[in-house]
């Protein structure tokens, strides 16, 4: 064995290299405060290993980036762990970098003859921050996209060359394929290459001068190997443990796919840039323009950092450097804490809104995951289309924008927010549509018409109170209900009422209300057409005013002209027709008491589709999230659950 080693050493000179590397003397003994550089090297090693493996599965284009990261995170063997390590080690690197810098400054290891090495270290710091910035964009999710946009906008306000530099960095005048390919080339190729090169030089120059022992009498001199190596290894193990624990119990986040058309109001930079984010929000900084706070001041601080070895030549230079460093560290930590506190515990409108936006973003991320796992999967054009075409996501937004000025949805605007005017909740002026078309809704129309349409009293049409037109007329539905509801509510007619409900709801053929009890439907149809009751009589039969072509039949019952046509009532086609033109003859056109505008020209086909499909629950839901359909045929009790998706977001939702 020894002869083999001798031969190998003769050919390569390996023994001398190993001796040189391992037997570095450490005056004052091996110390914990020296481990930080090694932990940084180790963390870089973690990033290179996990990064290369991630590289075998990541695809940098706007249509495949998020999708490939989703695949890695949720479908590939241990993908979540490899990605988790990569994500949290990146954060750890920033912390370790700061500690290493602080130790070097406080212990005076930046002073002559180690100035150049200090400057090399600053270059390395810049490269690491560049790696963080470029890496953050690569999943192409909402968070990364909008956070990086802020950074490239800051580049854009650089004096003289800002615009051009921004365009080169972005790969164009806006974000797109080339932004990703450029950032990826930087992240996986150029910056790691530069880091390795500068790191090699940094270590070589460090070895030239040896460790700067602040206190050479701290302990007897020892060797790098094995004394310092053991301490380094333990520190690395601690770093790895923290990274693994975070990967397992927290997990790297993946927000919804980047959507340039959907603003991400919860945008924040990664936590280690929060101080700069908060700093820029101070009015006295903001006044001077973005370039001042975002470029000039940070540059000035970097300049100071670079000049520290020179400053240290002066008698009080080192003390000044340490003092400024401590003050800056305190300010940075303070600003970070302030930003975090304001975001998560603040009472201001902006803070409250931020937390709501974060919750909404989480909601979107979960929904897109649900859709991606559906049998239809992710289409070739990418996952961003999944949310854009999802009625559950888009319907409430359309409702809030176009309908909630008059209507409500379970008391709110569809998205969970109250409708406010001048800081006060506004009164609705049209019916609440939260349970529209359900058996509950039909029962309310037939027996409690005044309550359903009570909001119409809050507005006028052509000078007359709309409620008066709607609710006080004698010869209309309001009058019929007043005259007939006692009959309908008689215990003997319980089955008839249930039948009428069943019959009318069955016209919609909505999946969410199925199955429909055929027996009840028949009872209801009989009551509708012939007024068949168990006790009492209708003053007029439904069919005498309402026209209806019953589902499955050829001939229409009744004749049009005096009341809304109930063909397919509350179904998809009916709703689309109604929303397009509520004033049409088959809807509210008769009697001219319609106050609802016609939406056929102002809502595109796409928006109409999304809105209506949301209202009738016609969208994909996985088995776990699907909440119960209302059961059919229960004579008195209505068991339909309220639409739990639209509950107001809880404010305690934390990131």
């Amino acid at each position, binding site marked *: 064995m020894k002869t083999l080693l001798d031969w190998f050493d003769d050919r390569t000179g390996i023994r001398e290299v190993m001796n040189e590397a391992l037997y570095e003397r450490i005056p004052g003994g091996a110390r914990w405060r020296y481990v930080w550089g090694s932990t940084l090297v180790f963390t870089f*090693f973690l990033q290179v290993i996990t990064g290369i493996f991630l590289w075998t599965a990541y695809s940098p284009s706007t249509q495949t980036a998020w*999708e490939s990261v989703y695949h890695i995170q949720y479908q*590939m063997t*241990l993908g979540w762990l490899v990605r988790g390590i990569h994500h949290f080690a990146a954060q750890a690197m920033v912390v370790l970098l700061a500690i290493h810098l602080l130790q070097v400054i406080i212990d005076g290891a930046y002073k002559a003859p180690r100035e150049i090495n200090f400057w090399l270290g600053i270059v390395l710091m810049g490269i690491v921050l560049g790696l963080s910035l470029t890496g953050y964009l690569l999943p192409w999710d909402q968070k990364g996209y909008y956070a990086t946009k802020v950074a490239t906008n800051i580049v854009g306000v650089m004096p003289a060359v800002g615009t051009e530099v921004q365009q080169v960095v972005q790969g164009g005048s806006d974000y797109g394929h080339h932004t990703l390919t450029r950032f990826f080339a930087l992240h996986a190729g150029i910056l790691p290459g530069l880091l390795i090169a500068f790191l090699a030089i940094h270590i070589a120059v460090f*070895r030239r001068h040896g460790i700067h022992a602040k206190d050479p009498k701290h302990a007897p001199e020892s060797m790098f190997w*094995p*004394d310092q190596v053991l301490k380094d*290894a333990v520190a690395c193990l601690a770093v790895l443990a923290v990274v*693994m624990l975070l990967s397992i119990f927290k997990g790297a986040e993946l927000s919804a796919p980047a959507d340039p058309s959907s603003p991400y109001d919860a945008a924040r930079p990664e936590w280690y840039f929060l101080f700069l984010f908060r700093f820029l929000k101070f009015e006295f900084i903001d006044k001077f323009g973005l370039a001042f706070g975002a470029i000039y001041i940070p540059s000035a601080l970097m300049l100071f950092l670079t000049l520290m070895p020179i400053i240290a030549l002066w008698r009080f230079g080192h003390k000044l450097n340490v003092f400024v460093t401590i003050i800056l560290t305190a300010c940075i930590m303070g600003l970070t804490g302030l930003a975090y506190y304001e975001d998560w515990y603040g009472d201001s409108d902006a803070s409250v809104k931020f937390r709501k936006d974060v919750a909404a973003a989480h909601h979107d991320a979960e929904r897109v995951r649900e859709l991606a796992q559906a049998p239809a999967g992710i289409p070739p054009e990418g996952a961003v289309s999944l949310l854009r075409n999802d009625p559950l996501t888009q319907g409430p937004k359309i409702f809030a924008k176009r309908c909630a000025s008059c209507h409500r949805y379970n008391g709110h605007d569809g998205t969970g927010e109250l409708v406010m005017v001048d800081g006060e909740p506004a009164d609705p002026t049209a019916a609440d549509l939260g349970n529209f078309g359900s058996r509950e809704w039909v029962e309310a129309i037939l027996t409690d018409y005044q309550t359903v349409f009570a909001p119409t009293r809050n507005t006028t049409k052509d000078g007359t109170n709309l409620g008066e037109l709607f609710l006080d007329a004698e010869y209309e539905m309001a009058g019929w209900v007043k005259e007939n509801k006692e009959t309908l509510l008689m215990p003997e007619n319980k089955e008839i009422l249930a039948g009428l409900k069943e019959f009318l709801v069955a016209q919609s053929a909505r999946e969410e209300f199925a199955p429909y009890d055929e027996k009840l439907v028949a009872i209801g149809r009989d009551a509708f057409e012939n007024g068949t009751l168990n006790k009492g009589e209708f003053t007029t039969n439904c069919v005498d005013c309402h026209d209806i072509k019953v589902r499955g039949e050829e001939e229409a019952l009744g004749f049009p002209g005096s009341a809304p046509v109930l063909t397919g009532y509350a179904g998809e086609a009916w709703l689309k027709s109604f929303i397009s033109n509520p004033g049409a003859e088959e809807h509210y056109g008769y009697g001219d008491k319609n106050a609802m505008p016609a939406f056929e020209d102002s809502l595109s086909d796409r928006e109409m589709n999304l809105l209506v499909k949301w209202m009738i629950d016609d969208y994909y839901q996985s088995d776990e999230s699907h909440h119960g359909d209302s059961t059919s045929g229960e004579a008195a009790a209505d068991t339909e659950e309220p639409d739990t998706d639209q509950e107001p977001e809880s404010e305690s939702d934390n990131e």
Partner: protein
Amino acid sequence: MNDSTPVDPASNDVSRRNFMTKVWSVIIGGIVTLTPLVAGLAFFLDPILRKKKAAGQSGAAGGPGEGFLNVISESAIPDDGTPVFQQIRKNVVDAWNTYIDQPVGSIYVRKTEDGNIIAFNSECPHLGCTVSYLDGARMFRCPCHDSEFELNGNETNEIPPRPMDELDVEVDESGNVWVKFQSYKIGVAEQIPKS
């Protein structure tokens, strides 16, 4: 200049502590090095470690079950036993994308003498070309290397390693012919399904 002559650590007092230090350094160093490597390796071996679920492999709706596709109507298959060439389309999963209704292969389907419907994968078991049907000679021949097969799929020369691969067929009451499309490894005598 740094003095790089090593201090001899061989003095007796410290040698055992020194040894333990070295042992622990190697152990801990080993753990922190191997952990990401092992995780990364498992991740890299995902193609063989993870059992894939094929998209829409539960078969088209209305069919006899897992993997069956509605290929042709019985009435479209000639009674004289002439094979019909049919393209097979399926949903394809490629990593994170699902592609709907993609061409994935083709089959021959024919009626036997006793009226049964049989189907073959048209991929030649020799080296994977698409086998042709020669109407005049009433047999299958592969244009690449001349593998020849009778209409019952059996090979008639030494070139292919096995007969044409027969597929499961079921006919429903409405006369629809359902075939369970499956590909097999080429170039070997045994029939080994490709996932």
